[in-house]
């Protein structure tokens, strides 16, 4: 009663060409075609060339913003994850509070809050304190640092993404069976040593791909910084389209530039995934 063989099993039978169609990376071909069309269009059109020239500084700033915020978020996230997993009740509470509050607030609101509410207040208090202590130089450095919109955007994005990264770290660390830590402890390692030599090296492999994904996501979310007067790629695009009224060319180019950056990032993440799978 049961068919003894799958009729589709012999490869290529009944096909005109022995091509494994389902394994062709169609999305890649479509992107390649779109990329070629875009490149031709840009090369042939002075408008697109002007647009690209105008947006160049924005691209640089977007990359700087992303990398700075990501570096800080990695540190904040690791600290929050270790606090979350510690045995100190206070640290755990602080960590959970941070993660839940930040994940519950839209990133745009967080950025606007830092730029227009928190930063001016903190700046005033710190500068006032430094002034009162007779250190006008320190006061100037503090206000100068906090006054920069770039720094505010970095801080806002890092605090926002730190909460997500903390959960990724935690998942990675918790994926290592507890028995390994116990085994390491029984061999005479301290908790810190067990963490450093046994848990983290394995956890890193697990968390690298999702960490990479969040770098790509952060790159896209860096566009939110345009709302707090950082002249990154999105704001550069807005500025250009408001001056030239060429919204079509401008936003085509803005989208294409973001896509180029995120695709490069995605390729990196894929490579990471392959590496982390192969290593196990």
């Amino acid at each position: 009663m049961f068919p003894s063989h799958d009729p589709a099993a012999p490869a290529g039978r009944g096909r005109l060409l022995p091509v494994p169609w389902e394994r062709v990376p169609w999305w890649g071909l479509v992107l390649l075609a779109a990329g070629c069309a875009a490149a031709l269009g840009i090369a042939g059109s002075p408008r697109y060339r002007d647009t690209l020239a105008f947006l160049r500084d924005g691209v640089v700033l977007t990359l700087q913003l992303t990398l700075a915020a990501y570096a800080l978020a990695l540190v904040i996230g690791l600290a929050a994850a270790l606090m979350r997993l510690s045995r100190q009740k206070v640290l755990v509470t602080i960590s959970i509070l941070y993660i839940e509050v930040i994940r519950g607030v839209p990133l745009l609101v967080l950025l606007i809050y830092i730029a227009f509410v928190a930063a001016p207040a903190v700046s005033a208090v710190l500068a006032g304190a430094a002034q009162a202590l007779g250190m006008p130089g320190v006061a100037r450095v503090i206000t100068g640092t906090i006054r920069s919109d770039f720094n505010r955007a970095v801080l806002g994005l890092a605090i926002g993404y730190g909460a997500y990264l903390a959960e990724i770290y935690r998942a990675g660390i918790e994926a290592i069976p507890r028995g390994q830590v116990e085994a390491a402890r029984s061999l005479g390692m301290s908790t810190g040593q067990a963490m450093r030599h046994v848990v983290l090296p394995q956890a890193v492999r697990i968390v690298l791909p999702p960490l990479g994904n969040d770098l790509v996501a952060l790159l896209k979310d860096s566009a939110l910084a345009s709302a707090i007067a950082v002249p990154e790629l999105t704001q550069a695009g807005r500025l250009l389209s408001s001056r030239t009224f060429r919204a079509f060319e401008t936003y085509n180019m803005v989208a294409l530039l973001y896509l180029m950056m995120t695709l490069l990032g995605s390729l990196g993440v894929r490579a990471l995934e392959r590496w982390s799978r192969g290593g196990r």
Partner: protein
Amino acid sequence: MRGRTWALVVVLVAVVIAGVIVRARVMGPGSASAPSPAAGPGAPAAGLGGREIRIGSDTTYPPFETVDEKTKAIVGFDPDLMDEVCRRANCKAKFTTTAWDGIFVALAKGDFDAVVSGVTITDERRKAVEFSEPYLRYGQVVLVRTDEAAIAGVDTLARKQVAVQTGTTNDEKATALQKEGKVGSIKRYETFALAVLALVNKDVDAVIIDSYAADGFIKVHDAKLKKVGEPFTSEALGIALRQGDTALKQAFDAALAAMKTDGTLDRLYKTWFVERAPK
């Protein structure tokens, strides 16, 4: 259970599609192309035949247009102006809040029939939109905090941080000044409300802004701000229309001309810019 779920999905999709169709009918070109030259009693009164004029406006710009805290209505000089213009041209002005960024694109593709948002008439904008005759002349000024001592006008902004709203004529002017080395750096915000907030927060040293809007913000911020120096440009505001929309242009220009002659425009001006100006 599964059958129920699917039925629900089908009903939902049907409702959404119906909604989209109805909306398209109501908002679509059908209503926009309503004006018919049917003559009413008295040739000028026929005007636009009572049609609704959809007006886009960035309503974060006192005293030209703001949203009233209590009633949520859009109030200011521009709404009053358009009510009066429409009373004379036989139409109905309907203001909608929208972002400044992209406001002219929305006008061009037909989301609005007019943009009335303290829009300065410039040659660059003329390439993309049609303008009515000017309804107000003004100059740009420098707005600073009351305790500011180092800035006395537009010539004292070198090495200072200046804020503007992205894509305004003030932005253009600040950019030009920066190229001449007369402005230190420029921060661009999505609205003037945010730019002025940055000034109050001491994030920037000055805001370059139209003189009447400066008065509006001084009032909003309880005299924490002041204007310094004389207005350093001479510009005019107009109603922005779609290119080739001669029906609206003729009707609005006629109404504005009449309002200039009989003193209505002056009265509106006094109401919003003299009586309500900060003392």
